[in-house]
């Protein structure tokens, strides 16, 4: 009887139980993490990354290259030297802002997949504000151009937000459709009205006129294309982190994402919250686009975003939807992308493997039953039938 009691006590108190084997140690290690929410999410993300990288390695093997060599080249290309780090930060800068755009939406329970569209429209309109508004000093012109980009991005996200808030239209498909429409609309506008007569006829990618110096983001490092866009992203992340901790909006937003019905009964105007969230998300997307066209490109270049808006989803989820976590997630994906480009040059593995790895990460990063499947926890999920 007493032995039975001991057994029960030992199960109750994992921390005092001696480890029977290495496997046992691992099991208890993971179980202890499971009890702490934040740590377990962190661990889940780590497992997702490792699984995706492993799958990527297998694919590299199938193609007949050496995965260890490839990943070494990737690591070296992303953090191996100061120039590599600068380039990683350059690639990360728009990702921080699109990640924040996604995080803001997801936290409030709005699945905005239209950041890409907002990004394109923001990039074009900021560039136009930079080119066609003349005679202003940098201190006014640059913020104005950024604001125009953010506003147009916000207006674009306003449509699906409005449809969701007042017509109950699902925002997922609506925002996806609007991405395609945005890209086509912009192509039309650039090709028929704003084409640079020099670049436009020689390059295969249509572009606008160059943006004058008064509207361009100052460079931190011109050689590596790093602008103060990254500082904008980091500052925004801190502001949002503060808002989520301290402001009424942050609380209501989290609450309506966590439990829609409860927050409705608690007096949150859900329709307004949805609309507002969508617009904020779109504005951030537009701002991300603006920092790109006013930054390293110095003009609007058609098709400049290789899915930066969609990367935002991975970035935000990597950071567990927290603003500061999003910054970390953005730097991680920036490193992957930049390292991938370096890897393409040194090893015969194209950078598209990064897209594959990113997709795989996304596929399992939200898998809440992953640990149950891996037999790392004893507690069964209540949802399991």
């Amino acid at each position, binding site marked *: 009887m007493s032995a039975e009691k001991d057994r029960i006590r030992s199960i109750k108190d994992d921390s005092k139980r001696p480890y029977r084997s290495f496997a046992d140690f691992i099991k208890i290690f993971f179980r202890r993490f499971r009890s702490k929410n934040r740590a377990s999410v962190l661990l889940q993300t780590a497992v997702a990354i490792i699984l995706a990288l492993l799958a990527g390695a297998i*694919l590299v093997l199938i*193609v007949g290259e050496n995965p260890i060599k490839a990943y070494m080249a990737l690591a070296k290309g992303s953090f191996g030297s100061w120039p590599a780090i600068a380039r990683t930060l350059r690639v990360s800068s728009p990702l921080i802002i699109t990640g924040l755009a996604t995080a803001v939406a997801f936290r409030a329970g709005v*699945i905005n*997949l239209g950041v890409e569209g907002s990004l394109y429209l923001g990039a074009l309109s900021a560039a136009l504000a930079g080119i066609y508004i003349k005679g202003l000093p940098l201190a006014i012109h640059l913020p104005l151009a950024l604001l125009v980009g953010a506003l147009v991005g916000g207006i674009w996200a306003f449509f699906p937000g409005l*449809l969701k808030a007042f*017509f*109950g*239209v*699902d925002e*997922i*498909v*609506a925002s*996806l*459709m*609007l991405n*395609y*429409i945005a890209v*086509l*609309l912009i*192509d*039309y506008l650039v*090709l*028929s009205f704003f084409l640079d007569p020099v670049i436009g006829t020689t390059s295969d990618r249509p572009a606008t006129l160059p943006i004058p110096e008064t509207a361009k983001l100052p460079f931190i490092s011109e050689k590596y294309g790093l602008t103060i866009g990254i500082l904008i992203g980091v500052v925004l992340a801190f502001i949002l982190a503060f808002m989520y901790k301290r402001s009424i909006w942050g609380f209501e937003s989290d609450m309506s994402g966590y439990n829609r019905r409860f927050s409705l009964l608690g007096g949150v105007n859900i329709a307004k919250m949805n609309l507002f969230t969508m617009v904020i998300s779109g504005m951030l997307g537009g701002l991300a686009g603006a920092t790109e066209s006013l930054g390293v490109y110095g003009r609007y270049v058609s098709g400049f975003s290789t*899915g930066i808006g*969609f990367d935002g*989803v*991975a970035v935000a*989820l990597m950071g567990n939807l927290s603003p500061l976590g999003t910054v970390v997630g953005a730097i991680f994906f920036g490193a992957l992308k930049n390292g991938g480009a370096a890897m393409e040059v040194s090893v*015969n*593995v*194209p950078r*598209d*493997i*990064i*897209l*594959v*790895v*990113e*997709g*795989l*990460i*996304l*596929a*399992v*990063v*939200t*898998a*809440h*039953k*992953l640990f149950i*499947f891996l037999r790392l926890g004893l507690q069964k*999920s209540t*949802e399991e*039938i």
Partner: protein
Amino acid sequence: MFSALISLGMLGATIRISTPLILAAIGAALSLKANLFNTAIEGFMLIGAFLAVLLSTKLENPYVALLITVLMTGLLGVLYGFVTITLGSDHIIAGLGFNLFATGITTWILQSVLNSPGGFMDPSIKNLPVVNIELINNIPILNVIFNDQDLITYSAWIVFAIAYLFVHQSKFGLRLRATGEYQLAASTLGIKTIFWKYFAALWTGIMAGLAGASISLSHLQMFSQGMTAGRGFIAFAAATFANGNILGTTVMALLFGFFGSVAIRLEGYGLPTQFVQMIPYLMTLLALIFTRRNTKK
């Protein structure tokens, strides 16, 4: 102008454009009935389109190529099922992940294995032969709908019939629907809910592969990067409008196909290409507003 839009040629074009939409939408509808919000269809279609063309060149037999393609995308469908059903990933996020994966892997293979970045075209691509039934050659409407189409176009109709009978008329379909309606209740009744969910995921993969093959192999005999261009999402939308009802889904897919063919017609009237290309997406958006279906749980 209007009479030119509604013509027999239009009917043929509508059928041609609808085929991938119908196939993919029926796949999405099956998933939807099992309560899976399978947005990964877009990616499956892309991989299907890619594999069909690639294998058809390598194997020099379009039928075998089609079979392997469909098996591979079916496998991917099961993988998506594994991630969402067993591992409990968010359906939309996992779908997005699979779509990125599809974009990445097709671009990768195009570039590093085939050495033709951007697209793949080969004179040795064997497309499926078109079928001509002489019996209905002289019947105007039937002739346009059923003649000079290839195997995949026919298969869309067969798939429609089978899916309709399966989902709405058979006891297995009832089990599938029960799983989707209320999994707990269904499993209490002894229905193998996990099995039916995987079954739906598998069929969605197969249908999407067939749809992708119909885009690349049937009409164009080429593959270009990102050639599905959101058609998977449109098919997904078509399925959600009809709430997974097979007949309604097919009608919606046909409607979207019709708008697609209208768009092609309008190009001849001097409308800017970009606006013409926008029409399918705009129509989907409009349909969303009118039906107000919710894709989320």
